[in-house]
């Protein structure tokens, strides 16, 4: 070979690559042009619907927990794009009421109805007949039974396996590997007599009485038990499919096959394609049991909506500019927009719509004050802090004025138990704050405070800095420290562990801590939830203030010891006053924007409405896309 031809080889390779690149880009733009009208096409018939053939949604993150519903035990996947779109639960809430008036109303979903025994301890659910999972497996009581006990097994036989509610006496059951082996051998569609004898054993807390009836027997009365089944562990998957694809796994190693190969559900959509960390493509479930529901039935229970678009793509895009670009260019019809670009959204109300939570929601922001460490263990000192923080200023400067006043611990949406005694928010009153400070006897010059916030939350830091400036006005020095997620737990932050666990490290836990990583919403919409978590001596987590009190504990214990709501309220009214006086938390307010400093925005010319998750973004912060309605559609 000549030298000349040798020297031309690399040049020729580069030329070929350039030709391929140019041709590729050309093909892309040609196909884009030809496909663009299709993806946003509208029909021209009289019953015109503006629904695009593909609905594209940009979410802010890929689900932690992937698409593996076994992780519901760990309060993930979050965001769970499969909630109600793929997986449904025995009961749900009225989404319309939740997102308009903020009322929590429980409605049937996969259960047709349920009854409760007079002692309030036995709930019998009658399941919908003729419902099947998207792969054709029948939905029945055996599947529900298998899922519930399987998750209990995966929890390491933790009594509080059901969304942190220890409502069952699990000691009477002996579910273990051998039961799973029996389930696998028998199957859950037509269970063998050996398996049936286990499943119908009424000495266990959960048992079946037939293919369409399942019974939950509680260890003590709990009026709001159905509420615990609304999300997470309550979302029903095809356990038969699970058994045929490797089973549950073990407590320290859940079956990871389902991470990217989700189990079938009964919902209106199925997962058609998954690109890890990038997107999930959904198509309509052709066998959805609710496909023929009447408009009235859907209006009464909107989460059952069969959906209005054949294909939905949910992207995970971590960059706010990228999401805003997609939304404004029409590449996405719905996108999560955060603080960075939120001003652009609200500046264009003709072009963009956005989801606003009602004043009475279950989603809030707050600051915990360490009640166990000097000087914040001093009640007068905490009261001084409460009265020195300007909540209105924080709302205006950090949350675009979209914080609804809140007086915890109860979520405002739980109206029956919210702010018992009608206590006002702590007033912003520097004179009063200084008086409390004097009464506390704390020498502020020698006792600077630490305030920990999570690094993933920009507005948390902004709000913390306002608190820092507010407290400086009464002479308190605050050091705001941003912690990476790896350190936003014990020993620096107490709320990730139990009250008793946090007590052990209380002297290292910050004097003040942002409540959770950003906004907080429940896992189960019960009125007991906030009390159980934030101020409970036996809480498994979330008592960031490391606070407990005997008067408060009486209220907490009452939730699971009596069916007498009036008695519970009476105890909780006293508890509310005690908490008000003890001031363990600064309740900044209920967030009206889903992300605190931003929300789920949509193209107003295309989208007319949507619902978000049934626990006010406690499980997912984007549209439950089967409820998305389109401009011009019936």
């Amino acid at each position, binding site marked *: 070979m000549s030298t000349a031809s040798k020297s031309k080889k690399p040049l020729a390779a580069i030329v070929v690559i350039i030709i*391929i690149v140019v041709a*590729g*880009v050309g*093909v*892309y733009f040609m*196909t884009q042009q030809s*496909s663009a009208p299709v*993806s946003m096409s509208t029909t021209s018939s009289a019953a015109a619907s503006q629904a695009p053939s593909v609905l594209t949604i940009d979410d802010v993150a890929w689900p*932690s927990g*992937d698409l*593996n519903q076994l*992780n519901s*035990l*760990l*309060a*993930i996947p979050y965001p769970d794009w499969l909630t109600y779109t793929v997986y449904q639960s025995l009961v749900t809430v009225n989404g319309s009421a939740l997102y308009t008036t903020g009322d929590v109303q429980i409605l049937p979903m996969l259960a047709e109805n349920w009854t409760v025994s007079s002692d309030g301890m036995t709930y019998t659910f009658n399941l919908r007949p003729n419902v099947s999972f998207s792969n054709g497996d029948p939905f029945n009581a055996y599947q529900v039974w298998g899922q519930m006990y399987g998750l209990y097994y*995966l929890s*390491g*036989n*933790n009594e*509080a396996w059901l969304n942190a509610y220890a409502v069952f006496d699990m000691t009477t059951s002996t579910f273990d590997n051998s039961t799973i082996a029996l389930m696998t051998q028998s199957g859950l569609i037509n269970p063998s007599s050996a398996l049936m004898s286990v499943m119908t054993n009424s000495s266990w807390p959960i048992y079946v009485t037939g293919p369409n009836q399942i019974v939950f027997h509680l260890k003590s009365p709990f009026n709001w038990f159905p509420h615990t089944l609304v999300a997470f562990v309550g979302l029903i998957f095809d356990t038969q499919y699970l058994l045929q694809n490797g089973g549950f796994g073990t*407590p*320290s*190693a*859940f079956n990871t096959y389902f*991470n990217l190969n989700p189990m079938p559900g009964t919902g209106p959509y199925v997962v058609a*394609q998954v*690109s*890890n*960390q*990038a*997107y999930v*493509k959904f198509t309509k479930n052709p066998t959805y049991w609710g496909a023929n529901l009447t408009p009235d039935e859907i209006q009464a229970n909107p989460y059952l909506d069969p959906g209005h678009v054949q*294909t939905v793509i949910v*992207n*995970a*895009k*971590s*960059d706010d*500019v*990228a999401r805003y*670009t997609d939304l*404004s*260019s029409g*590449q996405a019809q719905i996108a999560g927009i955060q603080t960075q670009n939120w001003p652009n959204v609200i500046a264009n109300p003709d072009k963009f719509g956005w989801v606003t939570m009602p004043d009475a929601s279950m989603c809030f922001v707050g600051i915990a004050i360490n009640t166990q460490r000097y000087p914040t263990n001093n009640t007068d000192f905490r009261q001084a802090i409460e009265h020195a923080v300007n909540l209105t200023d924080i709302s205006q400067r950090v949350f675009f004025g979209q914080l609804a006043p809140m007086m915890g611990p109860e979520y405002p949406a739980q109206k029956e138990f919210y702010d018992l005694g009608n206590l006002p928010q702590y007033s912003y009153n520097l004179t009063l704050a200084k008086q409390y400070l004097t009464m506390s006897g704390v020498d502020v010059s020698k006792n600077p405070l630490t305030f920990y916030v999570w690094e*993933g939350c920009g507005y948390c830091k902004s709000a913390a800095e306002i608190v820092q400036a507010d407290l400086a006005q009464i002479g308190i020095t605050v050091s705001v420290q941003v912690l*990476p*997620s*790896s350190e*936003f*737990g*014990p020993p620096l932050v107490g*709320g*990730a*562990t*139990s009250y008793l*666990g946090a007590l052990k490290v209380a002297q290292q836990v910050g004097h003040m801590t942002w409540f959770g990583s950003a906004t907080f919403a429940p896992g189960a919409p019960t009125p007991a939830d906030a009390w159980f978590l934030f101020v409970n001596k036996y809480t*498994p*987590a*979330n008592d960031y203030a490391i606070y407990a009190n005997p008067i408060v504990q009486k209220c907490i214990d009452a939730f699971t010891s009596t069916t007498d709501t009036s008695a519970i309220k009476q105890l909780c009214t006293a508890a509310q006053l005690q908490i008000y006086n003890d001031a363990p938390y600064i309740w900044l307010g209920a967030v009206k924007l889903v992300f605190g400093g931003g929300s789920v925005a949509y193209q107003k010319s295309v989208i007319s409405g949507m619902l978000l998750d049934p626990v006010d973004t406690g499980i997912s912060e984007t549209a439950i896309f089967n409820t998305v309605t389109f401009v011009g559609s019936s």
Partner: protein
Amino acid sequence: MNLAKYIIRRAIFATFVLLSVMTITFVLSHGLGGDPIYSWLGKAAGLHPELAEAYAAKYHLRDPVYVQYYYYLVGLSQGNLGYSPSRNFLPVAQVIGQTLPFTLQIGFFAILMTLIIGILLGVIAARYNHTPIDVAIRAVYMAGYGSPPFFVGLVLLIVLTFQFGLLPSGGAFDPNLVQPSWITGIPMIDSLLEGNFQYFASALVHVILPSTALAICFFGVVTRVLRSSMLEIMHANYIRTARAKGLDEGTIFFKHGLRHALMPIVSLSSLIVTWIITGTIFVENIFSYPGMGRYLVQALNGQDYPGILGTTIVYVLVIVSSTLVADVLYAVVDPQVRLG
């Protein structure tokens, strides 16, 4: 020293580098503070303490660091990179297998663009030395080189996508298209082999922004080195001889000058690979590109030791291999190196 001995010596050195980086990364990542089980399981660690302890025991989290390192090395010797908590305990090797091809796609195009733009502008700058063209080129590459990849990425995103709507804002391909089957594992190559040109075109368009962001940051080095090298060579004796022989200036410049001036680019290539591969960490996160850089950031945020170590090993392997290849190439073309 012959070439084989030289290569062996460099390979031993590369292994030592790999082990050192691995050990340092292991120790540093384990010194992040806090209890990793809270990062791994989040609130669930509090909700299910038994489960948390089961995980801690399984992954030896309560053992001293050197014991954990021992278990890691034992696993590594069996080809097991561990399980990745930030990816829900998928095997790290599997996650790397899913993400590395995407990073290689960005890397390939970024290197290609860096070299093409860098060499082209280097030649022009040398040819029009000390003219306004030279000054303009210098200004451009200094601006690029002085900007971090995430900044350039954001600027490109705002200009090319937001303002002009020319290119997609993120992702690796259009989700509406059929994905290619696994042949080589690199989607763009597989799509070409399968004749799935629509996917290839889509993947190509999605790779442009992240690759361009990296190329803008790093082409300046090539331009600058090539320009200096060209100017030096154009004053060499053999060039003077060529001129004396009556060769035309174009032949002298491109055939005798450029070929030799490219020599420093060979040794620089390993550095370019290093910069670009590490640069992918930033651009992948800006453009939501599902590559290994995005995985590394997730692993760092989630105190995912196996993920951090697994990706570090791959990054070091890529960097060390490229250095090794560059060293060997240099030794092949310049015997003084291996003799020295």
